[in-house]
């Protein structure tokens, strides 16, 4: 593993800096509107969930969901635009970089952007007094891990895609149901056992299981197990994305 991917990361970073306002607005406004709308609206009807106010409960889930969406959108839509539309990857490949370097740079970049979404939501959570213990700071590395897992999976979709429509399958069939069963809006434990088993096999559930106890103010039970699942998704996604990217670019 070399650091050649850093120049790819820096390229994307420079574009992001130039389009800062639009990028931040789209990545943050949506999740925050959801957080306060649902959090206060539904929260008024609910006494408390798992010993937390509903808005604090939902904030932990929303932090992970927003991180997931930012990572996925960046690696799928923006990645596809760079790879397919602008042919930026082709241009990079004439230089002494390989497709492996590009895949690594894209995944780390999308995870970084997702991390920024997660940490900004964390900042809002802290400012609004929804979390007060220093434990919540551990949600920062957790958000990066969630970002890494979804960036890597998103990049597989990117290098497999033949057109833009392809991503709507992944979003509708994977991301939306995953969001519903991963304990974002309500405790996943109240789901029927088979659905809970599915949730446990997917990455978002494990992100929520790490972040929610941290917002509540304590160490997450089974922290290493949850982190290991997220890391496994990131690693497997990285390997598969490289495999499919090599195949795509060798023809």
């Amino acid at each position, binding site marked *: 593993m070399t650091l050649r991917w850093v*120049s790819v990361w820096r*390229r994307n970073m*420079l*574009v992001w800096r130039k389009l800062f306002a639009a990028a931040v607005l789209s990545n943050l406004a949506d999740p925050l509107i959801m957080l306060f709308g649902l959090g206060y609206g539904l929260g008024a009807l609910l006494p408390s969930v798992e010993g937390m106010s509903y808005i604090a409960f939902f904030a932990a889930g929303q932090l992970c969901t927003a991180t997931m969406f930012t990572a996925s959108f960046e690696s799928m839509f923006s990645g596809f635009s760079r790879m397919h539309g*602008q042919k*930026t990857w082709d*241009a990079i490949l*004439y230089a*002494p970089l390989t497709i492996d370097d590009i895949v690594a740079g894209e995944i780390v970049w999308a995870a970084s952007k997702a991390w920024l979404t997660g940490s900004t939501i964390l900042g809002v959570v802290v400012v609004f007094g929804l979390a007060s213990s220093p434990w919540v700071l551990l949600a920062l590395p957790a958000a990066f891990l969630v970002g890494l897992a979804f960036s890597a999976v998103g990049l597989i979709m990117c290098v497999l895609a033949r057109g833009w429509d392809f991503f709507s399958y992944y979003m509708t069939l994977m991301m939306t149901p995953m969001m519903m069963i991963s304990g974002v809006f309500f405790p996943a434990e109240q789901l029927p056992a088979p659905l809970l088993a599915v949730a446990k096999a997917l990455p978002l559930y494990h992100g929520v299981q790490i972040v929610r106890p941290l917002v509540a103010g304590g160490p997450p039970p089974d922290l290493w197990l949850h982190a290991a699942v997220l890391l496994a998704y990131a690693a497997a996604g990285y390997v598969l994305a490289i495999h499919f990217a090599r195949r795509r670019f060798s023809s």
Partner: protein
Amino acid sequence: MTALLARALRKSYGELEVVSGVDLSVAPGECFGLLGPNGAGKTTTLKLCLGLIEPDGGAIELLGEPVPRRAREARRQVGVVPQFDNLDPDFTVEENLVVYGRYFRIPESRIRERIPGLLEFAGLAGRGDAKIITLSGGMKRRLTLARALVNNPQLVFMDEPTTGLDPQARHLIWERLRRLTQEGKTLVLTTHFMEEAERLCHRLAIMDRGRIIAQGTPRALIAEHIEPQVLEVHGQGYEAWMERAKTLAPRVERVGDTVYCYGEDIEPLLRSLSSFPDLSYLHRPASLEDVFLKLTGRDLRD
């Protein structure tokens, strides 16, 4: 020492063999042209030489490095101008060069030092802050050329460098490419503009259906493969004249309603035209295009 050497290169996509045994040898400082109709395998050959795709057979050596095994090392010293511009639309002219230089791990200060020279070369001096969207097609091509030079390469690959440009823009690119050869850089370009190949290239290879079918200097190719004089004739009643022409010229071809006659001595043909006042004609020396059409045929390639 050769700048680029390819031996018995083969590449198939599924059932279709796109490159079927190509041998190439380009000397340092040479401008080498790869000519061929669409689908001849030119772009695939370039990609193989760059190590972007793996050959099914054969060997490549680019600037002394075996490709694809050490393609990354070879590409440090190589520039590429692709057929379709892929500049970064979100960046300015200057940012495009800076970001591209980083891919070669050139220190930022050194890239910045090189930028004024590169912009001058591209005819974009003072346009460093311009957005890509505001550039004309010719400017984009020149910026792509400047980008390919950001690492001061020994060898530059160009895939149809002037396709889609107007004559002014094309002549400016030609002038710049000659400047590069004067600086001692090796150029390898693909084209289907014969005029471009004839003007720029020291040596040419004509490629068709994955094979190199002729190789040499532009003049040698013309001398070797085609009669020096051409007479093109068309107009009312050309059929009758064509029968006469066949007895006067060694090679007579009809394409649509135009008759092409090739030969050493065209005078008897010209005299025969005096009794056919309705025919129009053009008498010209043979060109590379005639060689190309003779060797690759006149059928459309789409």
